[in-house]
Every structure is written in C-alpha cells, then in structure tokens.
C-alpha cells in the first residue's frame, strides 16, 4: 500500500514539475490575441519603422470603408494599438469576409498622410482568429500629447458640445464635418461617408442634432494634421 502511495505522490510531483516548466502565458488570452506570425512586426516595431519602409502587420479588422475596384480601406487594431490600411488590394469575395473582428495579415509600405500613419500599397491575407476591440475612452487625453498614441484605435469621447455641423457639399450625401468644443478647445471630426454613409444611424443622427447639443461619440481616431475622428456612433445626452 505504502509503495502505491509513494508512486502516486511521485507521479503527482512529476506532473507538478511538468506544469511548472510550461510557459507562464500559455493560457494568457492577451498573449494569444497578440501573437504574431514569423516576420510580422509588433505594433512598436511598426511605429518605429521609417516612412516608405516595407511593413508587415497582423491585426483585427474593426471597420472598413466601402470596397471598390479591388481595393478596401481598413481600420484595424491589436491589443497594443490601432492601424489604418489605405486601399489594400482585395477581391470583392475576400472583402465580404472582412467582418468586424476578422484577423488579417497586411504587407505594404508605411505612409504618413498629414500625420495619419498608414499602410499603403498593401496586400491582405485573411487569418484564423477574431477579436473586437472595446472603445478606449480618450476623453481625458484631448488636447494632450497622449492622444496621438491612440491614433487609429476605436475610441469613445464623452461630453462634447457640438459647435458646427457642415455637409461637405452643402447638403446631405457626402462627408459631414462636425466641430466640437470641450474645455474651451475646438476639435474637428468627421462622419466619413465611405465608412458610415447616409443610410447609417450615425449619419442620420447628425441631421437631427444641433449646435449646442452635448454628445458622447465613438469612432476611429483618424488623424489629419490633428485628431480627426471618423465618427461611427453618437449619443445625445
């Protein structure tokens, strides 16, 4: 009997040792989500790359502008940061597969368009895996150097007061430019019609909102010289 007990204990000990030698993060879901294939840059490596350098990223699609002429423009994110991939070569069939959360690998060239860091001339590969980002609250970072660190991420900004609503062509159909004020500063954001066209709730919502209304917004923290969030949702307070 004693022998059996010793054997069992030894076996348990062995199992414990084996368990201890496993990588600590095997069951870490974050590590799994951010796992990159060979040759793929981390977010930090991507941001450190020079403009015009070739880059390869893996991230999760959080939004897209309308597909056209075998090209699609994507808003992407991983756990470390946001990406914007401009006019990635993509068939219509593949474009249909790019639902929110889809993991993709994009190879292209790093570009800087008026402060917007993006992947240009990209090609896409659809991978296994999905993840949908929660909106990061960047309200506290407005007007600070911290804000740009969240460029291209899916964000929320709260308690903004509408200062102006202007349709690109003077009437609904194209982009809507919206100026907001908060703490004495003005921020110019946009309802980008290729992302959220006239048929979407957010586009329709701005037809009913007025200067002076206080709202919370969600969107992608696009950049055009300064923060120029592409708004995807708005809630009047």
């Amino acid at each position, binding site marked *: 009997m004693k022998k059996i007990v010793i054997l069992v204990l030894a076996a348990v000990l062995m199992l414990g040792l084996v368990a201890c030698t496993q990588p600590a993060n095997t069951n870490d879901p974050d590590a799994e989500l951010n796992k990159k294939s060979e040759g793929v840059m981390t977010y930090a490596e991507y941001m450190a790359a020079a403009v015009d350098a070739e880059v390869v990223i893996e991230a999760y699609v959080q939004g897209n502008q309308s597909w*056209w002429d075998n090209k699609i423009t994507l808003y992407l994110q991983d756990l470390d940061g946001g990406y914007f991939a401009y006019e990635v070569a993509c068939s219509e069939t593949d474009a249909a597969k790019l639902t929110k959360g889809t993991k993709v690998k994009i190879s292209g060239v790093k570009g800087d368009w008026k402060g917007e860091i993006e992947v240009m001339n990209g090609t896409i590969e659809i991978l296994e895996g999905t993840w949908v980002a929660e909106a990061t609250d960047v309200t506290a970072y407005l007007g600070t150097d911290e804000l740009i660190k969240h460029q291209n991420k899916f964000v929320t900004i709260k308690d903004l007061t509408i200062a102006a609503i202007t349709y690109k*062509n003077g009437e609904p159909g194209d982009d809507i430019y919206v100026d907001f004020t908060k703490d004495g500063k003005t921020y110019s954001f946009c309802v980008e019609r290729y992302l959220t066209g006239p048929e979407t709730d957010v586009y329709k919502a701005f037809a009913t909102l007025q200067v002076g209304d206080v709202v919370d917004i969600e969107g992608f923290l696009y950049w055009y010289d300064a923060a120029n969030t592409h708004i995807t949702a708005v809630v009047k307070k």
Partner: protein
Amino acid sequence: MRIFKRLITMLLAITLLSLTFVACHAKRKMEPFVMPEEFDTSREYEISFWAKNDTNMTQVGIYQKAIKDFEAIYPNVKVKLELYTNYADIYKDVINNVMTGTTPNVCITYPDHIATYMMGDNVVVPLDELLVDQKYGLGGDRIEFDSPALSEMVPEFMEECKIGETYYAIPYMRSTEACYINKTFVEKLGYTVPDVLTWDFIFEVSAAAMEKNEDGTFKVNGQDVLIPFIYKSTDNMMIQMLKQKGIDYSTQNGDILMFNDDTKNVLYTIAESASIKAFNTFARISYPANYLNAGQCIFAIDSTAGATWMGSNAPLLDISEDQLVQFETAVRIAPQYDVESPQMISQGPSICVFNKEDDQEVLASWIFAQFMLTNSVQISYAQTEGYVPVTLKAQNSAEYQDYLSREGENNDFYYDIKLKATKLLLDNTENTFVTPVFNGSMSLRNAAGELVEKVNLYARQGKKVDDAYFDSLFESVIINNKLDQRLGMSSKRDLGALPTTSVVLIAVVGAAWLVIGSCYVVGLIKEKKKK
C-alpha cells in the same frame, strides 16, 4: 412511367426557371436615340445632373443658379442636382448604374470614362446629330437661351470630346497643369526662374536644395522638412514626359506602346531625384499646396484649377496660419524637354448625355447640357479657379476680358496666381494635347501614374533601380491594370473556382439532361420488351 414524366416536368421547370433568372440579370439593350421633330413642351420632365465641384461652395452655387435659370426658361423641365467632390466617385457610381440601367441624364465626366460607359449598348448619346441640328443644336433656332454656335466652341476642346470619329461629349471647363514655384527659394539657391522650366532645371535645383545645416535642418528653409519637387498627378507627369520626348504611349486604336526602353530612361531620371528624396508625390504625402505654402516645397505641380490654394496669399488654405510662410510665387507651364516646342496636357471636365427610352427626355437633357455652355455659366464657373471657358463666345466677351485685365486687384476674386494660371492655358491652347480615348484608356493612364509612383517609392527606399527592376515593374504594372490581354500577353493568373451559382446552374442543367436521357433509354427498353 408517370413518375418519370412528373420528374421530367419538374426538372424542365427548374431548368427553365433558372434560365429565366439568368436572363433577368442580363442587361436590356437600349434602342439608339432618335431625334424628335419637336421638343414637346406640353410634357413635364425630371432630369438628373451629376456634377463635380472642387470642395468649393461657389461652384456649388453656380450649378444651383444655372439650374434655377434654366428652369425659369424651361419650366416643364426639373433638374435634380447630385454633387460629387471627385471624378472617381462619379465614374464609380455611373458604372454601377450602367449595369442597372439607372444612369443620370446628364453627367460631368472625362472622355476616358465615357469610353468605359460605352461598354453598354447605346448607353451614351452620340452628339454629332444633336450638335448641328438646326432647331436644337448649338445655337439652334428653337433654343430659348443664348447658346453658342458650334463655330463659337474652342476647336481644340471640342476635338477632345471625340471617341473615334464621333462626339460623345461637349467640353465644360478646361485647365492644364502649372508649376507653382517658391521663387524666393530658387533665387536663394543662386538660380533664376526661367520663362519656360525644363525638367533638368527642376531636378538640378531640387538636388541643390537638399543641402543641410549641421543641426539637420535644410539650409534653404531652416526647417526639418523639405520636399523640393512635388507632383500631384503622376499619370499626367508620365504622359507629358513621354509626349515631350516623342516616346510612344498608345495608338488611337488602343494599342499600348508605353512599356519600352525609352520609358525606362525617363523613369531613371525620376528615380535619381527620388533616391535623394528631392521628389515626392501627392499619393504619398498629400497636397503639394500645403508644402509649398509652408515653405517646405519649391516646385509644386498641380492643376491650374487648383491655383486658389497656391501661394502665401492664397484665398483658400489647408494649413494653419502659423504654418504659412511668406514668399514670392511664380507660375509657369509644366516643365519641358524642348522649350521651343512646349507641350502640355489639356484636362478638365466635359459633359455627356445618357440615353433613355424616352427620346423627349434625352432631348430635354441635351438642351440642359447646352445651357451649361452659356456665357453666364461659363464665365462664372471659370472664375472660381484657374479654369478657362470652353467657348470663344465667353472667352472673347467684354465681361471675361475685363476679368482677365484685373489680375492681382485683390487676393480673392482677382487673385494674381489664379489669373496667371488661367492665362497659361489661354496663351498655350494650341500647345495642348490629350491622350487617345478607347475602352481601356483609363487603365493605361492609371498604369502611367503607377510607374512613377512605384519607381519613386522603390528609389526612396534606397533600392537599386536597374533594367531588371524595370522589367519586373513593367510586368506587375501591366497585370495590375489588366493590360496584358490588350498587349497580347498570356495571362498567368488563376481565374479561381466557378461561382457557386454557376456551379448550381450547370449541375441542374446537367441533371435534367441526365434524367431526360435515362427516361428515353428506359422508354426504349420498355418499348422493345412490349414488342
């Protein structure tokens, strides 16, 4: 046997139904437009007009006023305006609507685009007959407004609207490219801006401007950023370089000739400038005007229709006041290889009329299109930018001549850079050219721009540009733009699996024939047995 009959009936029904669905998705053929004897003014018409503005509300206002004025003359015609801020979007939407037979009635467009719209039967109305119709043609005696006669159109601009030997559009506005120069910086570098720029001059000054101070800033502007030479439309850049050098681009019939050794030599010069980062393009870094106005660019090449954004005193600005730098701006025609024989691209919107089942509706559309050529529309729209009216009637009018004579009176309506840019085209109309238009000419134009963009990027990355690179570049650009079939090359691309709907349809048809065949054989056997 009864069960077989039922099965056959059912399968035949499925097959026929499938074929019906397929037929439903096929395009209906439009009958050609037939000129009515008279315009029926007793009827009401609603016509759609898709137009482009340069994010310029004055232009929007001019379209709206033109429609209001037209409707006052023709109260039975209502015009519905749809505005776009770029031609690509109009093109995209028209293509989608050609497929469904829901094109607009009248559309601002480019002849290259029209060539693609014409993939459908009788989609775009040929204008030869309409232009010269005594009653409703240009200056026709039944036209209720002061329409220009055909002889009052600028002939060069009219010619651009021909596809083959037929007119498919009328010109609306014309522009060309101009080089907007920071003259202050050129002189600071020890050069003088010549009357006609050469490519060599621009590349040389741009290289000289790359000299830096010890702290890493550029000597000429004292800033961290300087891109001496920026080109907005690289397709135009390539096309003009080829034309000026006498290098083949394409034939009138659509034979593609651009991919040759002479083209490589031109691209080498671009690569040289890009490799020292003295050159860049709109596609990579955005608008040349922003860099020019911030003192970060010396030679900005953009349309004359972008003149109101150029210079320290520009009425339109896309940068903040604190970024704006004061300098003297010079304006010249696009750079040349041979200054004695300048050649420059002619560009700018044209107007086409789409065919409809109702010929009266088409005639109403044509009359409206013609209204866009009246002096009031032509002059007011041309004045919004460095555009040139397309009619001699407008160009020679006292109103327009007075406008031209007041260059620099203020920095708004009479902004000197805008008027200088306008005069570049007025003085060089006979030196303009356009590329041949055919179905696929837009792809070739895109390919021309892609060559410059890719060489620029490759050289900027510090990679070696050589003949082997150009061979692979040509191949990829040809395939990207689907020019391989036109060039007679065999496409190596895998077309992929058949769509599911096609597979299902083929399977259904196959199965039906199989069952019919089986029944026939079974019938024969049974008949033999009976005998």
